[in-house]
């Protein structure tokens, strides 16, 4: 059963962008993404990330690392 206690729904855009743009399944290979400009999609989003990160003055750590507990 999922947790039935309080859910923490306040959403910080920086948290969401971190997950939505840097995590999740990645599909690479030109043929799977047939819209010629898909790489540009990422560029477009990078503009957004950069502006959000500038607003937040977000320092970054070393590249993410995964640890199995």
């Amino acid at each position, binding site marked *: *059963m*999922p*947790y039935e*206690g309080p*859910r*923490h729904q*306040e*959403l*910080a*855009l*920086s*948290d*969401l*962008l*971190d*997950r*939505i*743009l*840097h*995590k*999740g*399944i*990645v*599909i*690479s*290979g*030109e*043929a*799977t*993404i*047939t*819209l010629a*400009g*898909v790489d*540009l*999609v*990422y*560029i*477009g*989003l990078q*503009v*957004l990330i950069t*502006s959000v990160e500038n607003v*937040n*003055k*977000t*320092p*970054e*750590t070393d590249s*993410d*690392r*995964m*640890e*199995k*507990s």
Partner: protein
Amino acid sequence: MPLADPLLYLFGIARAGKQLKSLEAAKSIGPVEFAPPRNIASGNLQAVVCDLHMPEGVELDTVLQDPSQAEAVVLYHHRVLEWAADQLAILPLRLGAVFSNERCLQQVLKEGHAQLQQAIEKIEGAAEWGVKVYCDRTQLRKNGCIDSAETASFRAKHECASDGKKFFLLRQLQKLIEKDEAEAITQCLNDALTQITPFAKQRITGKFHANAPTESMAEMVSNDAFLIEFEHEKGFHEAVEKLNAGYGSSGFLFHVTGPWPSYSFATVNLIGDENAL
């Protein structure tokens, strides 16, 4: 303006079998229309997708150059995944996976079948929770950070020094205090991991942000994502509450976010087949 052939936008991948409840009507963002989400079965997997309608000559990139439209796409992607994750274990796609047709998508699902099955097994029965730790160094110095023997000795030396010498000793004293603070922070974070990890299947360390919850808690010292099985969520939350109770007076704040769709634990990299077209 006439519409181009619809593209297929992929939100996530789950096991086949469970039909998702309907979400809502189409979502329009600028000139782009996301049709209501639907599923496409492929063997024992299903992809949660929607048709993406764009006027001829409009490119998604152009739409995303507008920050408010880009933000709307980001939020919609997340909303659909939250809706799906409430109903089944879904592997979120990174934003922006667009296919020209179903055949290309089927090809990717077929090629990545084994990897995807394995990844779904990992996240089934669990949710992603974020824990960000903030530190108020003023509070830490006041209540939490005890001088090491070296710092205490140096502090005594500094206090007894002449005014001229004090100036030079002060910088060294500050360095020692910073070292003590760093050790106190490390000790706190290690203790936090000891308390939380028994409830977690997996942990991923993320980037630091500056979205501080309060002005004094401006410094983020840790930002982890934990994959927590449903049966351990209560224990996880109790552990975090205990940490806040124990370390709050020393200047630490443990801030929980979630539950999230399992973005941080969907670590599959699928390679498309160049002949799929």
